[in-house]
């Protein structure tokens, strides 16, 4: 037992790239992520079992002892070789169906160590027919240096090592066959070839003799990343750096391989899946190719973009070839129904229903389809060049003439009501024609607009049989008219004046709250108060003329606002807009002073999320899920935002297109468009597909690239913490912990570049917190975190609630150079600064930049503006990190910065004068550090500060003044950990908040080889413990020296060796970038430690527990427990 008690680290939740996947049966999927094997039930998405199998290694391969059975057997037992690096762990997986539940166990056996990197493992049997063999007798292992070893099983004895004449490094290898005789072996080399050789052939040949290469498959222009045999072993598929997959015949060696072009980036792996081949790529997609052994080309049938930003890593197919599973770098595991793809969700022209006009009765007229609307899943109403309005049934190809008008010749704008019963046509002259979609009533005409009717919107009225119709012209007003079925009449209710350069592109009406909102082609969003107009809705009255109550010009930049939706939610009136900037925005609608004649309407942006590089066109709320429709790269897509998966993708961005979701559950979808004067329609009925109940994902998509910053927030109920993360993908994410998985709830892409730093500070207006994020392109953003409300998703009982995050503001850019990066942020409320007189709810945001500047901003929660208060180019080298601490006795806030030249600087950012705004002056303070010193040879990546409570110990009693003491720990690029004790005092005559500070380093310790590589995370746990993490993927815990012990006092330039290492453990996150620590309240409550632990200069080594988060290429939560103390 050490002086600070027993330390124990436990690994908890984990999210990292999924590298291996294997279907045990049609319904059971094994997944390998980091060292963990997870067993999922595909049909329900249930996690059946999970086990840490490989310890500090990462699983690359999962190989079963025998083929997976078709169907879902009640009992299943398999031996799985779990391989990673140079280790194989045999794992017994048992599944037993008890009622509808599975009982599963994963049992790891003793690990086998090998001498080289493993590329494949195969179980071998004594007989050709494996079904009659009880268990395998040998294990074949393939290695990166192109040799194979045969080991006996189960006793694990090396039988033979077999080399090949080709001496080169392999990226991929694959065995085929389960019997020693005839074992085939294919390897993908770094020299762009696939080579085949037989390790077990020619018994007569001495074992030491190298085998000959039997076949060389040449053609790839890059390294071969994976090779797969077809199920019959007659063909090989290989994937490569050259962005292609190739399929080679082993039967006919002269046949040219099929070359599959399409992936936009490197291809990592592939699988034969019955009549298709599936491949996964760095371009984040899984592609499905039609596999025809006789054809030279294989058509791409589908592109599934199921992972974030980058890298779909692995792919597995179930034995029946009905489900494809993909795993990605974003830690997501996605399921794709291959059978419904076959059933028709394929974007080939075969499935298009063409609408061709019947032979025109009058051949003299040039007749063509000009426009159309969808009135049901099976019917469209088209307008023709000659002014005819005709209904067409897709299934029967029946035509029914509805109307003909010379006013509609060559131009007719059209819209259909949501129920499909009313069709409204607009003419060149501004006339609206109201038509019954079944031709049951006489048409009604209304002169609504002046000029060409550009766009028409038909909304279902409040009462049945009433429709609200909005029609717009290019440079004129928006007209609201109402059509009443009973009387077959229409009249104008109101005319909305539009500002200049506003062409309405979308409309939403909320009668209950009396608001009309419209979005424009130029990106503007407008709100009108229509309450007064609703009161005099009588047809006898003159229409009201209304002007906008609220307007925002750049709601979606300069891009078209394509749709608006207004809804009453629990949290109040909400609006959603979609835009051709590829984003959707959620707005809070506030209506002030409800009784006033003219009400104030304001909209506040609550959330913006960019979904696509293309256009977002529509948003649907179907069965509690949000479905977005848009175009990307000439393809139409439906995206389920709630579940985060692409619902469908099919061809064509078109000027005229319509989408109809037939029921609330979006199960019947029809999409139609005009191409070359013809209407083409797709009809989808996913409900009829057998696998439609398949959960879209087994594991959530987390960050698509490296996570650079993590913040742990204490959860109110004291359960697991909430995680705020951001990184290279520019996404800010709030997640909770669900057993061993990280569950992201809210992912917002607001940063245009990577996020490198974040800081949290309490909000002064609400009970929540503020989050500041900064990163590339000189971006610094403010967010509000409302802990109370769950944001979007319904949270099951007992699950921790994720906070809602709202975008508040973006800091103006200060650098001419957009390449400047924000490297670190520290933020605190200015109420903490004594004597300052800034307005309430103002926060200090200290940011350090790659252009060597420290900038101190004031951010107001009310005005949502950043104001530059002070700056300094003192460091003259990129500043890499910063941290601040408030010292109450001193009445000051100190900021600590560390730069790429190895220097630490200490700044007084709580100086009263700095925070005294002078009227009429916008001068920016030039800051000077209180102290600076060399701490490392080169870049300081991280630093953390611990305030030592200023007890009246002997030293300060002698000096007679209040001295503040801090531990400052810094981790460098030079592998070193430095620890400084800093003593700070104010001028004797100084009052709170003013006067000069004096700082000096009083103790100095340095551990030169704290880690094997650059330190990337450093946090104090309490006054006795410090945690660090580095690129060497270790988490080290260090004992802080007793503050009373003066052996490390600064006497010379040399630092004292230390602090001592207490505990070290491997983490499973590659490229660690940040570390955060949260003391666990629950644990303390359990121990009855109600009072906060006194983190003082006195030795505090009581029992405690902390949650640690390490982020990088993934994220890992660990728990550190100190179970006993040695001395008080």
């Amino acid at each position: 037992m050490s002086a600070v008690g027993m330390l124990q680290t436990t690994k908890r939740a984990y999210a990292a790239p999924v590298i291996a996947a294997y279907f045990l049966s049609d319904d059971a999927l094994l997944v390998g992520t980091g060292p963990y094997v997870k067993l999922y039930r595909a049909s329900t998405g249930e996690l059946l079992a999970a086990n840490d199998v490989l310890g500090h290694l990462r699983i690359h391969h999962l190989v079963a002892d025998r083929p997976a059975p078709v169907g879902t057997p009640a009992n299943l037992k398999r031996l799985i070789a779990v391989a990673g690096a140079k280790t194989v762990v045999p794992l017994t997986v048992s599944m037993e169906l008890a009622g509808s539940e599975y009982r599963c166990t994963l049992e790891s056996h003793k690990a086998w160590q090998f001498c080289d990197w493993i590329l494949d493992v195969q179980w071998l049997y004594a007989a050709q027919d494996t079904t009659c063999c009880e268990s395998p007798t040998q294990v074949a292992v393939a290695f990166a240096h192109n040799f194979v070893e045969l080991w006996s099983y189960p006793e694990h004895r090396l039988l033979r090592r077999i080399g090949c004449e080709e001496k080169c490094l392999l990226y991929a290898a694959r065995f085929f066959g389960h019997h020693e005789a005839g074992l085939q072996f294919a390897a993908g080399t770094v020299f762009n070839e696939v080579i085949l050789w037989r390790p077990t052939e020619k018994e007569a040949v001495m074992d030491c003799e190298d085998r000959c290469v039997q076949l060389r498959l040449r053609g790839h222009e890059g390294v071969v990343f994976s090779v797969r045999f077809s199920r019959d072993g007659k063909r090989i598929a290989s994937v490569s750096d050259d962005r292609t997959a190739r399929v080679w015949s082993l039967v006919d060696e002269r046949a040219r391989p099929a070359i599959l072009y399409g992936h936009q980036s490197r291809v990592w792996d592939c699988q034969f899946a019955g009549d298709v081949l599936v491949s996964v790529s760095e371009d984040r997609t899984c592609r499905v190719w039609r596999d025809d052994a006789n054809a030279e080309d294989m058509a791409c049938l589908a592109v599934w973009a199921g992972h974030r930003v980058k890298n779909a890593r692995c792919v597995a197919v179930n034995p029946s070839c009905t489900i494809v599973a993909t795993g990605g770098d974003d830690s997501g595991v996605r399921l794709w129904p291959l059978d419904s793809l076959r059933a028709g969700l394929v974007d080939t022209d075969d499935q298009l229903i063409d609408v061709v006009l019947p032979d025109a009765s009058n051949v003299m007229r040039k007749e063509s389809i000009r426009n159309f609307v969808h009135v049901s899943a099976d019917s469209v109403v088209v307008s023709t060049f000659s002014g005819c309005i005709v209904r067409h049934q897709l299934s029967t190809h029946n035509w029914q003439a509805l109307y003909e008008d010379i006013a509609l010749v060559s131009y007719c704008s059209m819209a259909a009501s949501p129920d499909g019963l009313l069709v409204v046509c607009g003419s060149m002259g501004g006339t609206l024609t109201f038509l019954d979609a079944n031709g049951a009533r006489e048409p009604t005409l209304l002169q609504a607009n002046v000029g060409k009717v550009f766009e028409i919107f038909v909304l279902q009225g409040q009462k049945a049989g009433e429709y609200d119709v909005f029609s717009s012209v290019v440079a004129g007003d928006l007209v609201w008219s109402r059509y009443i079925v009973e009387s077959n009449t229409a009249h104008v209710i109101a005319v909305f004046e539009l500002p200049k350069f506003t062409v309405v592109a979308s409309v939403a009406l909320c009668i209950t709250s009396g608001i009309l909102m419209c979005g424009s082609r130029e990106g503007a969003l407008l709100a009108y108060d229509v309450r007064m107009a609703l009161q005099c809705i009588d047809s006898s009255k003159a229409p009201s003329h209304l002007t906008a109550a609220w307007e925002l010009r750049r709601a979606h930049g300069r891009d078209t606002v394509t749709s608006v939706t207004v809804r009453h939610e629990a949290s109040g009136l909400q609006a959603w807009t979609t835009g051709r900037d590829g984003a959707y925005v959620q707005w809070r609608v506030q209506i002030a002073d409800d009784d006033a004649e003219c009400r104030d309407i304001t909209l506040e942006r609550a959330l913006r999320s960019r979904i696509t590089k293309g256009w977002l066109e529509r948003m649907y709320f179907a069965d509690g899920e949000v479905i977005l429709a848009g175009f990307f790269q000439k393809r139409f897509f439906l995206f389920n935002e709630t579940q985060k998966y692409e619902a469908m993708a099919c061809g064509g961005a078109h000027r005229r297109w319509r989408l109809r979701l037939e029921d609330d559950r979006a199960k019947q979808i029809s999409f139609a468009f005009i191409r070359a004067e013809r209407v083409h329609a797709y009809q989808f009925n996913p409900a009829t597909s057998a696998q439609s109940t398949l959960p879209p994902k087994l594991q959530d998509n987390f960050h698509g690239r490296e996570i650079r910053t993590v913040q742990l927030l204490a959860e109110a109920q004291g359960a697991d913490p909430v995680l705020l993360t951001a990184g290279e993908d520019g996404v800010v994410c709030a997640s909770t912990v669900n057993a061993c998985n990280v569950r992201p709830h809210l992912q917002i892409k607001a940063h245009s570049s990577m996020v490198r730093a974040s800081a949290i500070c309490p909000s002064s207006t609400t009970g929540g917190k503020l989050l500041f994020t900064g990163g590339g392109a000189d971006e610094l953003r403010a967010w509000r975190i409302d802990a109370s409300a769950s944001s979007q998703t319904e949270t099951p009982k007992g699950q921790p609630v994720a906070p809602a995050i709202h975008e508040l503001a973006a800091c103006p850019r200060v650098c001419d150079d957009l390449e400047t990066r924000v490297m670190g942020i520290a933020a605190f409320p200015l109420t903490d600064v004594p004597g300052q007189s800034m307005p309430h709810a103002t926060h200090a945001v200290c940011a350090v930049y790659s252009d060597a500047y420290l900038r101190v901003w004031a951010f107001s929660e009310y005005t949502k503006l950043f104001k530059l208060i002070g700056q300094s180019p003192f460091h003259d080298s990129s500043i890499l990190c910063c941290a601040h601490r408030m010292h109450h006795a001193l009445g000051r806030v100190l900021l600590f910065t560390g730069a790429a030249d190895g220097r630490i600087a200490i700044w007084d950012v709580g100086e009263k004068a700095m925070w005294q705004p002078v009227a009429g002056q916008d001068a920016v303070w030039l800051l000077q550090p209180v102290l600076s010193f060399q701490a490392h040879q080169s870049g300081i990546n991280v630093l953390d500060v611990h305030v030592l409570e200023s007890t009246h110990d002997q030293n300060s009693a002698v000096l007679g003044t209040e001295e503040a003491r801090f531990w400052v720990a810094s981790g460098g690029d030079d592998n070193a950990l430095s620890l400084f004790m800093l003593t700070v005092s104010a001028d004797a005559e100084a009052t709170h908040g003013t006067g000069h500070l004096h700082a000096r380093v009083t103790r100095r310790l340095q551990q030169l080889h704290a880690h094997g590589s650059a330190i990337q995370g450093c946090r104090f746990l309490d006054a006795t413990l410090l945690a660090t993490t580095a690129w060497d993927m270790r988490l080290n815990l260090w004992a802080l020296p007793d503050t009373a012990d003066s052996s490390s006092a600064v006497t010379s330039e040399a630092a004292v060796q230390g602090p001592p290492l207490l505990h070290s453990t491997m983490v499973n996150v590659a490229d660690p970038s940040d570390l955060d620590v949260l003391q666990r309240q629950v644990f303390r409550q359990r121990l009855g430690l109600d009072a906060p632990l006194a983190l003082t200069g006195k030795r505090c080594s009581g029992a405690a527990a902390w949650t640690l988060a390490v982020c990088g290429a993934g994220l890992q939560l660990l728990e550190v427990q100190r179970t006993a103390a040695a001395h008080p």
Partner: protein
Amino acid sequence: MGRTSKDKRDIYYRLAKEQGWRARSAFKLLQIDEDFDLFTGVRRVVDLCAAPGSWSQVLSKRLHENTTQDDEQPKIVAIDLQPMAPIPGVIQIQGDITKKATAEEVIAHFEGERADLVVCDGAPDVTGLHDMDEYIQAQLLLSALSITTHVLRPGGAFVAKIFRGKDMTLLTTQLQVFFCTVTCSKPRSSRNSKAFIVCEDYQPPTDYVPSMINPMLDFDYGTGNELTGMHRKIVPFLACGDLRGWDADRTYPLEASRQTWDDDSYQPLDPLQLPISPAYKTALEMRRGLRPAGDGATDDADADSASA
């Protein structure tokens, strides 16, 4: 990313183009030399994995600077699998460093003598799987070490790129078997997890016979090897290059590197040597329509958004 953008982001990328180096890595070797004084008295150098050739450029320049007319002229042999544009004063071999024939060819160029210095700036393309990338990089380094044991004279030095990842300490332990002093050095012009291992005073074990047939297999952290903790042997770290020099992490205004220029209008420069033909060249040409597409190329990445 446009040229201007990359110029802004990375001061060394810009300096390299301005000063005529084929790659920014030239500065890394210059900075290592500042601290380790690699080139004094050196007459014979081998540059492994040399393409595109910036290290050979540095070697050629520095060794010829140090040489007077009367001295023996320096000999630089550059080896790479890829072809490389010629550099004055550098002998080029297009070959595989894992082949014994290549080692023999080098010694032939040195007329039977051994090299004073072997450098290797080679790195494989990374896959993003950190453990695998580290392994492949380690294999490359071990191959470089393997040929080095054939061609380096006792007392000579070896400089190679190393990936500062999880298992770096295992690799450095192995290098300490062959060299008296091993230092991990990170030049200030290096911005990522790549560092350089500087091995001085080559003293192979007495019973060591250089061999290419059995590649040296790297050690593993097994039982007896400490996974964690202070018992791991961590080689000293040295940040090299002038602390007052350019800072690779820093964002500089475009004018910063050109104080001597009269005209301050910025002109982006073309890279001196374009990347050697990439693996995806054919795929790219197909996408751009330069080649007839067989099939499968169904969508077009160049079109960023939908067309109306």
